[in-house]
C-alpha cells in the first residue's frame, strides 16, 4: 500500500458513524417526546413543525435562535476543553455567573472610558473572574487528586449565592428593588448585529473561538498533549507529559471561556447582572459538549439545537395550546440521551486512573 494513498484516506474525517452517534440522541428524544405529546393529546408532527417554524422560519427567527445559542456555544466549548484532557468540569455555570457579574461591574463602574477600552476591559474582567473561579478546583485536582466533579459542582452553588448577595447588597442598583445591578453604559455593550434581535458581536467571538479550538486541537503540541492525557493519563505521564500542569491549564482555560460566556451575555443581551442571570447555560453546555462529541462543528450544531429549542419554546405557547413544559420535556429528553454517552466518558476516565 502506498504511503500517499493511505495517508489521504486516514485524515480525520467525520464518518457516518460519528454522524449517527450524534444524531441518534436527537431522534430518540423526538420519539420519546412524541409519545408524551401524543398522550397529552397533541399531534407530535404538528408540534415539531411548529417548533421548526418558530426557530428557523425566517430571518428574525433564525437570528433569535443564533442569539440564544451564543452562550451555549461558549459554555459547550468551555466544558469540552476540560473534557478533552479528561477533566469532568461541571462548574462552568459558576464561571458564567461570576464572569457576568464582573463584566457588568466594569460596565457600570468605569463609565468614563471610551468603548474601545471599556468593552475589552469588561470582557477581560469576565475572563479573569471565570479563570480565578476555577483556580481552586484546578489546584485541588492536580495536586491532591480531589475529585473535580464534587468541587466544581459545589462551587456553582457558592457562585449562585455569592452573586445573589452582591446584587442584593453592595452592587444593587440605586433605587431598585429587584435584585439587579445598574445597567451598563452604552460604551460597554456589544454591538447588535441585527437590531432589534439580541444577536450581537458575541456570536462572532464565539465562532472565532470555535475555529481557534479546531486549529488548536489539530495542530499544536498542547492540543496533542491534552488529547493523549484525556485518552490515557497513565500513558501521558509515562511519556513525560506534565499531566498535573496540563489539568491546571485546561481547567483555567475552561473557566476563562465560561467567564467570557457570562461577560458576553451581560454586555450583549442582558446589559446588567440580575439574579437568575443564567437559566443553566453552564449545565446545558455539558449536554452541548457531549452531544457535539467535543468537536468544534459538533458543538456548534448542538448549541444551535438547544438554542432553537429555547427560542421556539418561548413563543410556541403564544401561538398554540402547547404548553412550554412540553418543550422543556423535549429539551430534557435530548439532554438525557446526549448524556447517555456520559457512561462511556466516565469509563474512559476511570480506566485511565
Amino acid at each position: 500500500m502506498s504511503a500517499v494513498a493511505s495517508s489521504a484516506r486516514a485524515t480525520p474525517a467525520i464518518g457516518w458513524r460519528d454522524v449517527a452517534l450524534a444524531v441518534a440522541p436527537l431522534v430518540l428524544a423526538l420519539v420519546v417526546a412524541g409519545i408524551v405529546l401524543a398522550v397529552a393529546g397533541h399531534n407530535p408532527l404538528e408540534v415539531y413543525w411548529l417548533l421548526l417554524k418558530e426557530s428557523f422560519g425566517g430571518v428574525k427567527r433564525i437570528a433569535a435562535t443564533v442569539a440564544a445559542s451564543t452562550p451555549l456555544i461558549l459554555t459547550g466549548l468551555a466544558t469540552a476543553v476540560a473534557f478533552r484532557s479528561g477533566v469532568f468540569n461541571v462548574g462552568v455555570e459558576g464561571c458564567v455567573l461570576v464572569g457576568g457579574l464582573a463584566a457588568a461591574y466594569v460596565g457600570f463602574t468605569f463609565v468614563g472610558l471610551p468603548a474601545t477600552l471599556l468593552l475589552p476591559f469588561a470582557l477581560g474582567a469576565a475572563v479573569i473572574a471565570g479563570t480565578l473561579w476555577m483556580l481552586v478546583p484546578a489546584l485541588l485536582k492536580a495536586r491532591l487528586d480531589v475529585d473535580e466533579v464534587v468541587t466544581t459542582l459545589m462551587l456553582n452553588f457558592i457562585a449562585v449565592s455569592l452573586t445573589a448577595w452582591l446584587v442584593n447588597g453592595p452592587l444593587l442598583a440605586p433605587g431598585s428593588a429587584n435584585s439587579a445591578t445598574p445597567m451598563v453604559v452604552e460604551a460597554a455593550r456589544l454591538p447588535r448585529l441585527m437590531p432589534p434581535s439580541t444577536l450581537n458581536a458575541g456570536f462572532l467571538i464565539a465562532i472565532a473561538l470555535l475555529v481557534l479550538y479546531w486549529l488548536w486541537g489539530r495542530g499544536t503540541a498542547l492540543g496533542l498533549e491534552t488529547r493523549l492525557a484525556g485518552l490515557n493519563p497513565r500513558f501521558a505521564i509515562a511519556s513525560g507529559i506534565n499531566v498535573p500542569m496540563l489539568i491546571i491549564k485546561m481547567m483555567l482555560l475552561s473557566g476563562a471561556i465560561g467567564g467570557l460566556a457570562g461577560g458576553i451575555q451581560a454586555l450583549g443581551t442582558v446589559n446588567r447582572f440580575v439574579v437568575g442571570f443564567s437559566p443553566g447555560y453552564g449545565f446545558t453546555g455539558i449536554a452541548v459538549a457531549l452531544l457535539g462529541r467535543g468537536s468544534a462543528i459538533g458543538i456548534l450544531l448542538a448549541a444551535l439545537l438547544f438554542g432553537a429549542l429555547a427560542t421556539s419554546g418561548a413563543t410556541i405557547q403564544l401561538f398554540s395550546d402547547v404548553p412550554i413544559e412540553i418543550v422543556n420535556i423535549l429539551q430534557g429528553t435530548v439532554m438525557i440521551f446526549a448524556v447517555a454517552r456520559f457512561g462511556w466518558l466516565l469509563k474512559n476516565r476511570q480506566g485511565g486512573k
Partner: protein
Amino acid sequence: MSMAEFTPDTTIRLGAHSVTRRFGELVANDGITFRAHRGTIHAIVGGNGAGKSTLMRILQGMDRPDEGVVLVDGMPTVFFGPADAFEKGIGMVHQEFMLVPGLTLLENLVLAQEPLDGLRRIDRKKALDAARKLEREAGVTLDWDMPVDDAPVHVRQIVEILRLLYRGADVLILDEPTAVLAPAQVQELIVLLRKLRSEGRTILFISHKLDEVMALADEITVIRSGKVIGAMKTAETSKAALAEMMIGEILSRPNARPSPVGRTVLELRGLAAMDARRVLRLKELDLDIRAGEIVGIAGVAGNGQDELIAAVTGLGRIERGSVRLDGEDVTKLGLRARRERGLSYLSPDRAAEGLCLSAPISENLIAGRHRSAALCKAGVLQKGAIKRHVETLLDRFSVKRASAALPISSLSGGNQQRVAMARELDGNPKLLVACQPTRGVDIRGIAFIHQCLLDYREAGGAVLVISEELDELIALSDRIVVLYDGRVTGEVARGSAKVEELGRMMLGETRKEVAA
C-alpha cells in the same frame, strides 16, 4: 456444506471446520479446521497475528465465522454470544484475570452462582464444600478466605480455572496461561491441567511457548497467517519442527558480541520502596549499570520489580536510598525530568501505560518527543517533519501498517511493541529501562527486539531489563541479578547462567545454596 454429509463424531468435544473470518481485506482465519478430542489437551500454536485470538473469540461465541462452522460434540453449532457457548460447557481463562478485587477467593469462586441459605444469604458452608470438591478434582489446596488482592498471580489463575469448573464448564480455553508464571509455577499449572484432563475435561491451550506446548499437549495444531500449517500428535513432532512451522524459517539467535563497558550510567544505593499498600517491597538494593552493558533482573513477579521500576523511572516514591543517572543525583526528580536527562522507559504494561491504544500510530511514536525542536516550533506541530520522522522510524523498525494515522490498536501486539521500542530508542537515551520487552510478542518479533537492545548496547547504551522470561534474560544480559523479597539473592555473569539455577534463586535460595 449440508448437514447430511456430516457424521457427528462425538469424540470431538470442540473443533472448527473450515472457519474463515475476514476483517476488510485481512483474512484473520482462512479455512481453519481442527478437532480437540474429549479428555485431551489440545494446543493451538502460532505467532502474533497468526489468527489465534480471532479463532478464540469465535470458539467462545464472541464472534462468528464468515464461513465454516464451530463443532461442539461433533455437531456444527452456531453460538449466540459467549453465554450460549458457556451453556454448552465452554469456558475461557483470559490473559487478564477477571476476578473482583476486595472479595475473597471463595466469594470470587461462587460469584454469580452463590449457594444461598433460607434468608438468601450466601451459604458459606455449601460454598466451601463446593470449593473443597473442586480442590480435590484439581489436586490443589487454597486458602479460600484470602482476599484476591493478597493472592499471588498463580493462585488467582487457579481460582479462575476452578471458577469455570464450578459454573459447569468442561472445556477450558486458556490463552497464554503461563505468561505470568515463574518456572516452578508453570510446572504446577501443568500438573493441574493434567489432573483435569484425567477427570475427563478437555483443554484448549493457546501458546507460542514451545517448551510448554511440548510438555503439556496431546495434540497440536499450528497456525500461521490464518491458515493451519500442520496438525499432529505431540509425540510425533519436535520443538524445532514446530518452530519452523510457526515462523516458516529458522531464525538465527541474536548475537551478543563482547562490547567494552564505559562509565557508570545508573547507580542505585540503599534503595528501599513501598508498594501502594504501604508494604515494604524493595529492601536495601544496590545496583550499578555501565554504558555498553545490559543488566537483567530476574525474579518471580511481586518481589520488588515493580517498585524497582518505579524508583528508577521516577514514577514512584522511595523510602530511602539514592538514584544517580549519568553521575547526577536524580533521586528527587520525577519521570519527566529524568527523561530530559537521558532516561528511556519501555513500560511492562503496553495496553495501559506503554501506548495509547485509541490514538494514532504516529502520535504514539512521537508522544513525549513531540516538543523537540525538529517536530514543533513555537508550540505548533510541524506536520511535514513529523510525518517524515514517523515514516522513517516505522520503516527502520519494520512496523507493518496500512497508515500511521490509524489507531495503534489496529496493529498486532508485536508491531505495537516495535512502535514502543522505536519511540524509546529514538533520541539517543543514556539508559533504557526495558520492562517485559517481548511480552506477547512472537518469535520473529522477539528476535528483532533483542537485536535492537543488543545494537543499542553496542552503541554504548545502558539497559536495565526486567523480564519474566528467563531465556530472554540469559540471551540478553551481561549480568543477571536475581531479586527475591526485595533483595538481591544472586548475580550471574553472561555465559554462566542456567535456567534451573536461576529458578531456584528466584524462589529464595542464595547463589551459594544453589551451587552446593
